């Protein structure tokens, strides 16, 4: 089963990666911390110390157009902040 949807590549997460060795991922909604740990360890060949997760609900989006009001909702997702064991590293920029 797929666990990781995509890594979060932002300035904020880059900074945290360098300073605190923490990396963020968007993960599937229904996976547990232990599953995330396992998936990250396998994918990046590192040791994971802790995993923190949080669930974001999708936002309501309303647009006012000529043909009436369009309203909908963005997708909700689960975010995992993975702290690696000291010395380990994930390089998201290795293929640039």
């Amino acid at each position, binding site marked *: 089963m797929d666990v990781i949807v995509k890594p979060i590549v932002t*300035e904020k997460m*880059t900074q945290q*990666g*360098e300073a605190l060795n923490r990396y963020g991922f968007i993960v599937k909604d229904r996976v547990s911390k232990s599953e995330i740990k396992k998936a990250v360890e396998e994918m990046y060949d590192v040791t994971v110390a802790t995993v923190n997760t949080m669930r974001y609900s999708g936002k309501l989006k309303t647009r006012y157009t000529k043909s009436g009001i369009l309203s909908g909702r963005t997708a909700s997702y689960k975010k995992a902040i993975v702290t690696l064991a000291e010395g380990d*590293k994930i*390089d*998201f*920029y*290795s293929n*640039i």
Partner: protein
Amino acid sequence: MNIVRENIDDLNAVIKLTIEKDDYEKRVADVLKSYQKKASMPGFRPGKVPSGLVKKMYGNAVLVDEINKLVSENLSKYLTDNELNILGEPLPSESQQPIDFDTQDSFEFAFDIALSPQVEVKLTKREKIPYYTIEVTNDMVDGQIKTLTSRFGTSQNVDVVGEESLVKGDFVQIDAEGNAIEEGINAEDSVMSLAIIKDDKAKKEFVGKKVGDDIVFDPKKAFPNDTEISYLLKVTKEQAADVSGSFRFTIKEITEHVDPELNQELFDKLFGEGKVTSEEEMKTRVKEDMQKTFEMESEYRFSADAREKLTGKIEMDLPAEFLKRWMKATNRGEEQISDEQIDNDMPKFLEDLKWQLIRNEIIRTNELKIEEKDVVEFAKKSARVQFMQYGLTNLPDEHIEGYAMDMMKNQDHGRRFAEGALSEKVMEFVKESVKLDPKEISREEFNKLFENN
């Protein structure tokens, strides 16, 4: 970090330097961090480039750079800490393993060094070094006075041509019968000096002639040089080469150079107001000046002699092979010199080096030191010499001092002056510690001394 020295023989040694990861890691990281703060890359805001990327881009260059710095720092520190007197500079050893900065964590460097041999300089009164002084003869003084005064001479019109007169007149080319050739060369108002006429016969013709007289002569014979002919006849050089036959010269004007009168006015002009009042005084003054200049030459000769004597007397071994390599390495830049050239230059270079070592030893053992004022003194002296070359012998002191100070502002000059002052000190010391063998010789003999070397 680990430094070991292995002596090969008395003069050669290898320094082995091992650098571990711990030694350079922090320095490299620091440099990379400062790079990261400044780096700007497309896709990132300036200063927000991930450290991994910076490392990938600059990491190796920084690593090489830092290791290079580390090596040279430690090497020179080692050399000064252990008080090793080396010749030239450390060179990478030929046995050096190639280094792969990508994969290796610890690096080993080997350097060849050459140690300077032990030198012992003993100067005693038993050593005899000739000290030549140049005799100033009356002829030389007279000659010098003549060149000095002739600058203030005047030209005067005279009636009769003398041995060294300047004559002005017209040239007309003539045929065998003495008639002017119609299409021939005519030149008006040519000026020639009798002193440069090479043909004695033609010269005699001129002497004693007056304004308005005609002289017939062959310029080709009188002036073997085509340039002079072209100037006199006002033709091109090519034409001058083809000129033949006789010319008639009509004298229009005769001038003669007259030496100025030796009077107070002239003395003032030459030596400054009121310094010299009679001819006798002028002679002594000129003689003194000449002695002063000759003294410098004597000093120079003495230093050359002393140097030769000392280098000849003191034996030492020098690591010639290493020095050859070093010379080649230092000259690698703009113009490579060939092995042959090095071989040719080597004996001279070794000789120079030997003298350098002896000099340093003299300085070290006798604690010779130069001070600011020595350097200034030397700078003033060389400034004075420079002015003397232009014929300015009696400049006021403050003027020379100002000029010397100006020259010393230039770093290059400053160093040269310091070097010169030190050499002078060494020579003074040598002069005091050995026995001088004073000899007075004539100018010609003195010049001959230099021909031999």
